[in-house]
């Protein structure tokens, strides 16, 4: 594969989901994690990229502190403490036992071994608390709280080292590779086996890295872990507060957004894992999953039981793949109507990695009202498509988005708008289509789709957007992805084994200046 000139390392905040998953893994499930960290922020389309840019706010730090104590209290309750405390204290204050605890638990919490100074710094706090409060385990709560509040826990610290083997100039250390793999594939902290592999030095060798990647991929945890990637890629957090005007859309409910996300995630799991197949099927599959709410929205038979059931849309249905899901159709629309622009923009950016400039300031953007001459949205947006200052971008978006006019602002199927039969034909970069199903086929075969998926996964894995020095390597990754039938697992294996994932630069290096 081509050489890579990597980006210098950056700290990454744990996302809210990673924080919760990590607490579960450190202490066992059932711990109540109160409150929230700061909200995750989206940059360049991904929360994973926002995590590499943002700091914790004072309010976030306050929430972390109170959460840390509530978590610590539960973790050291008599029925749980044996899982994490490796020794029985000889008295209220037992410095050896507290230091042992900090050494062993700290390695899991910080995803690396602690230095002696660090162990002392934290176990001293625990000993002093134990003395003040008169209880050894009450003291340890303060050690846990300190470990959870440290930046070494709250941020992913992956700073790299000079590569002693000379394969890369600078590479991520074995411990850092453990975190990188685990957060990418399982969306959580490394398990003990992965940390042990890091300690043995396995993760800086090709074979050792591959063995662990395959182990993680073979686990059912990779399904949920990589669904987090899918969720981020599809911008599903936007559905957290989906709002549709109930007078216009009686199918709107507080739970619709969550149902819509689950439908799409189930399809992803089916395509990417159960079928192990071609990710492009996400766009064209007639197979999907609905609960009663979605069944009513889509006008298909409802499942017999509560929850989701598999179903298949008929061959003549325009509802195909993700682009027929409410997760796409309803979130890329307005509270009372559709939006060809929002839908088209989503397709361009998310599936084709197109860069669309923002709208200019100081222009009149109003869409003309419904008149006798122009009743459908297609007729009304003509101005965007003919005025040269609008058309250069809007043609790219609107002509794609209009393909979905058969689905209203909440994703219900319709054949007319204002009494006029909807025309959903169009063309995608030279390929003509008749309707949404035709667009799905055209998008599936688009030459930018595969490279875009590979590039998005690399961005997600690295927490940064590629620069010029990586385009060649990313191009290679996209080709490998195509050669292997657009399946997720080989893409993950190629990416993680490559310098795109393993190499870095010293901090503050500008990669464009080291050629």
């Amino acid at each position: 594969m081509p050489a890579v000139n990597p980006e210098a390392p950056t700290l990454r905040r744990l996302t809210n989901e990673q924080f919760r998953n990590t607490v579960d893994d450190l202490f066992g499930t059932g711990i109540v994690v109160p409150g929230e960290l700061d909200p995750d922020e989206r940059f360049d389309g991904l929360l994973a990229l926002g995590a590499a840019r943002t700091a914790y706010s004072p309010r976030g730090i306050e929430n972390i502190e109170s959460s840390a104590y509530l978590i610590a209290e539960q973790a050291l309750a008599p029925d749980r403490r044996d899982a994490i405390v490796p020794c029985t204290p000889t008295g209220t204050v037992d410095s050896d036992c507290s230091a042992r605890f900090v050494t062993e638990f700290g390695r899991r919490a910080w995803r690396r071994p602690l230095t002696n100074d660090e162990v002392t710094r934290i176990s001293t706090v625990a000993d002093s608390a134990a003395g003040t409060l008169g209880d050894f385990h009450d003291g340890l709560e303060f050690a846990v709280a300190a470990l959870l509040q440290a930046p070494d826990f709250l941020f992913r610290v992956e700073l790299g080292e000079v590569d002693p083997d000379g394969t890369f100039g600078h590479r991520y250390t074995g411990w850092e590779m453990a975190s990188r793999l685990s957060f990418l594939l399982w969306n959580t902290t490394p398990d003990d086996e992965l940390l042990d592999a890091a300690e043995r030095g396995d993760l800086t060798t090709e074979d050792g890295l591959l063995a662990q990647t395959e182990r993680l991929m073979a686990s059912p945890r990779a399904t949920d872990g990589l669904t987090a990637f899918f969720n981020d890629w599809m911008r599903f957090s936007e559905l957290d507060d989906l709002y549709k005007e109930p007078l216009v859309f009686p199918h709107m409910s507080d739970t619709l957004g969550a149902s819509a996300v689950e439908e799409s995630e189930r399809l992803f799991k089916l395509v990417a894992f159960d079928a192990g197949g071609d990710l492009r099927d996400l766009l064209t599959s007639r197979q999907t999953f609905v609960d009663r709410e979605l069944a009513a929205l889509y006008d298909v038979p409802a499942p017999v039981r509560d929850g989701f059931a598999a179903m298949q849309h008929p061959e003549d249905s325009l509802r195909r793949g993700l682009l027929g899901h409410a997760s796409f159709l309803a979130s890329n629309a307005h509270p009372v109507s559709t939006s060809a622009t929002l839908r088209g923009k989503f397709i361009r950016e998310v599936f084709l990695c197109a860069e669309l400039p923002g709208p200019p300031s100081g222009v009149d953007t109003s869409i003309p009202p419904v008149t006798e001459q122009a009743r459908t949205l297609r007729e009304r947006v003509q101005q965007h498509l003919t005025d040269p200052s609008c058309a250069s971008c809007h043609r790219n978006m609107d002509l794609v988005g209009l393909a979905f006019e058969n689905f209203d602002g909440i994703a219900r199927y319709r054949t007319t708008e204002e009494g006029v039969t909807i025309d959903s034909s169009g063309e995608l970069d030279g390929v003509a289509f008749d309707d949404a199903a035709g667009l799905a086929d055209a998008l599936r075969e688009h030459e930018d789709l595969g490279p875009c998926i590979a590039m998005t996964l690399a961005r997600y894995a690295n927490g940064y957007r590629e620069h010029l020095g990586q385009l060649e390597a990313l191009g290679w990754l996209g080709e490998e992805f195509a050669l292997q039938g657009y399946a997720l697992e080989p893409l993950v294996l190629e990416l993680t084994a490559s310098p795109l994932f393993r190499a870095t630069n010293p901090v503050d290096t500008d990669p464009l200046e080291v050629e």
Partner: protein
Amino acid sequence: MARSLDRRTVLKGLLGGAAISIGLPPLEAMLDASGTAYADGGALPRRFVTFFWGNGMIPERWTPSAFGAGDEWELSEQLLPLASIKHRIAVITGTEVRVPNRIPHFSGMGGLLCGLDPIGEEGNWTVAGPTIDQILAQEIGGETRFRSLEVGSRPGDGVSFNGPNSRNPFEASPRAFFNRIFGEGFTAPGEEPILDPKIGLRRSVLDAVMEQTAQLESRVGTADQQRLDQHLSGIRDLELRLQRMEDDPPNLASCERPDEPPTDDTWGNNIIERGRVMHDLVAMALACDQTRVLTYAHTMPVDNYVYPGIPDGHHRLTHDEPEPQEGVHGVTLQIMEEFAHFVQALDAIPEGDGTMLDNLVVLGTSEVSEARTHSLEEIPIVLAGSACGFLKQDIHYRSSTRENASKVMLSLMRAMGTNPAAFGEGDAMSTDSLGDIEA
């Protein structure tokens, strides 16, 4: 409300307050006869409050036709909901935000509140420096339990920034806000301070975390150093807050622990009702001197809430509704009603000779004027309150020369007792305040 003088109060009174200034909170029992100041001559707290709403207004229907003071001017069509508070407000029209208008909605927010052109690239814009509330928080926020507070009426990300990529997310849940301010760690007037050995231990944990953070900071890149600096400053604020739990509680006359508000599902999607509960909580948080810098976001830039009786989401309407945009106008009226309610909640708190509104200023503003074109001319600014007599009330100031909106920001900085040489940088910089609105 029975209240006794505790040991420290007596001590402070005996010594006239001069010799032992140990940072005790103000005590209502020590106010002078008129109640305007403490026995030792200290002033009541002065606060800076922002009331932000998204998507601007319609300049032709917003701007009052006459300018001047008192009877010389009348409210415009869009400002009519402010009738009950006309005598407490200053309407400033005709100013402009002088940053390049490159990024719809964002340029205006950063340009107005920071006086700086946003930085970044397509899709990743951020502010180039702190917003005015955080500049002030560094100056006047150090004496209260919270350096600043950020609140809103519906979930969103916030308009208060510590600097680039460092936003202060706001609290949109009344219950969560109540718990944060009036839950653990709050002591009402007359109550004993919280003495708990765990507080000292928590502080020693924070010390250890700060050492750990400093150690990490020495190994990371420049951008990460700034992020960790931010982290450290948050930890220091928290440590100070823990330390203050052991102090006497704030003791302003009108401070009392409010009732716990209902859970969020009570209001569903109704941000009007939820917001009004928040207004009252905000008023009490200020009355109890929990902070002196508070940012309230009624809505965020680009907000698309569907207001009662309005046919579509707010942002959508600003762009797609044909002239004369009756829907947008209807939304603006509703927002002004909420602004009036917010100001009235602050005005309902007796303080000194008058009300809390005498001792603060509310900056009511938005990130654009006419959202349809994202215009930064005629940026809407309504001030409420006099900030201890520093600012005029019941005036409409109309700039006939398109003055820099940063002049207003500089007036506000000065109204808060700070005296910076300038607000903003580049074209947005102003070294002059707007003398016409200053008393």
